[in-house]
């Protein structure tokens, strides 16, 4: 009976964070190397791992995160293997090498505790984006895992002379040094039922990357369902 399932057994650990399949993240935990992960994203663990929701440090850093009932981030510590997932979303593991990345709050899955991070409000059109665009800005050297509904795409902003416009619902992450603006393509014709369905975008300019997911479903499933 187990013969067909053996192919899904864990592979040998080679790095701190690895994909298991495309939608699951495996983190090798050790004492002293804490991990911040989305609350409720744990699907399995082996070993001795403890979870602390809303640790005081997080509360202080994410004090601006006033949506809902606080920062949906927990601190994981201990020894073992930790498996994280977000309702079947693709997981992208990034090894930051003195880089920085600004990730949409719902698309953060986990990151190393020693990284520098902070929660910031996206300037410009946060009011238009519906859920309010709260971002986690992560920088330093270490591991970050982000989620994306479907295989994401990474676009280099500095390539063309024009700005890059992104639907806020499909936006996953971007380089923090990019300039962000809101752009309304809202016309009076939308009021009489003749809109194009694209009312506002975010405009990026400068040198850096933008990560976009192929889905406009940006609901926070970990928050909605738990």
């Amino acid at each position: 009976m187990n013969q067909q399932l053996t192919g899904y057994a864990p592979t040998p650990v080679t790095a701190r964070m690895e994909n298991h399949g495309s939608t699951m993240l495996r983190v090798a935990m050790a004492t002293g190397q804490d991990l911040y992960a989305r609350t409720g994203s744990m699907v399995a663990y082996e070993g001795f791992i403890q979870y602390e929701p809303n640790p005081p440090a997080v509360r202080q850093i994410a004090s601006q995160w006033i949506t809902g009932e606080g920062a949906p981030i927990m601190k994981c510590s201990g020894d073992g293997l930790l498996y994280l997932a977000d309702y079947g979303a693709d997981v992208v593991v990034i090894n930051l090498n003195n880089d920085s990345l600004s990730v949409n709050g719902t698309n953060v899955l986990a990151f190393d505790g020693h990284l520098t991070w902070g929660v910031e409000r996206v300037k410009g059109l946060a009011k238009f984006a519906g859920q309010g665009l709260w971002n986690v800005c992560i920088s330093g050297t270490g591991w970050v895992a982000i989620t994306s509904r479907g295989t994401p795409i990474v676009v280099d902003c500095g390539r063309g002379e024009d700005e890059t416009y992104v639907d806020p619902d499909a936006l996953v992450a971007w380089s923090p040094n990019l300039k962000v603006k809101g752009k309304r393509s809202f016309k009076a014709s939308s009021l009489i039922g003749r809109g194009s369905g694209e009312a506002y975008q975010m405009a990026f300019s400068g040198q850096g990357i933008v990560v976009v997911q192929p889905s406009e479903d940006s609901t926070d499933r970990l928050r909605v369902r738990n």
Partner: protein
Amino acid sequence: MHAAPTMAAPLAPHGGMVPPPAPAPAPFGQPGQPPQQPQFGQVPGQAPPAAPYGQQPPGPYGQQAPAPYGQQPPGMQPPGTQPPGMSQGVPQGLPQAGAGLQAALQLYKETPTGQRWTPQNQKLMRVDLTMGDTPVLARQGSMVMYQGKVDFGYKGAGFAGRIVGNATGQEMQLMRCTGRGQIFFAEDASHLHAIELQGDGICVSAENVLAFDETLQYEVRRIEGHGIPGGALFTMQFQGTGTVVVKTHGVPVVLPVTPTTFADCNAVVAWSSASQVIISSQVRLRRNAYPGHSGETVNLQFRGAPGNFIVVQPYEV
């Protein structure tokens, strides 16, 4: 492909003290087969179920020799790659592509080509409006990103179009994308397929159309038949020269049209319009006499010359 020992063969115990395992006892009726013979339930031509993620052939239940958590055998850890602030204990191997943000995201880079329509990955379609001068019509709200100067305008179906669309259920809420630039389309992480028409036609269910060139003509077509709820089935037929982007839930199957090609009318997404569609129904008197039936009584049958095809998605709407 079958280099890994098949799971059905008796597994040699760990330790490597045992001589090479004897060939597995051949299944009945198949004398002399090598032990790599695929077993029941395994489709020939596919990789054996072992190691889909590139792992070693596992031992019983796929467990490696138990090592302390997160600890590698000595020698596996590349020296000098320890980032500051990390203690010992966790393997700090770097991804194959190397460290850094650019390397990690290299896999997902935009791939510009000289084409007008470029699938960026299975779920994202990029159209370059600077190639060719025709605007693109797309489902409203399906744009996820664009670069350049692009204007999104409302595209009405017209008075007659709205009447027909309402009556048949084959209505599309469209927007017209004009200007100069590149637009990325995606919706709900469904799979996208660009079908290029060169004077021929294709029938697509309207809800599976994501975008198309404005050069194409489209109209609602009716398939008559008995047994379909509502009395008839409607599809959208595209004709002309241009590209239609069709979306499917999941990986679709594209079947060539043979004398015996059938599809569920809820799962079929598209078919080449040169093939003829017939309603085939299994009429059984017993269905009325006993409770419970298979639910697969009304099907679409496709007939046509070789070269025609149908697209079926693994999702019945």
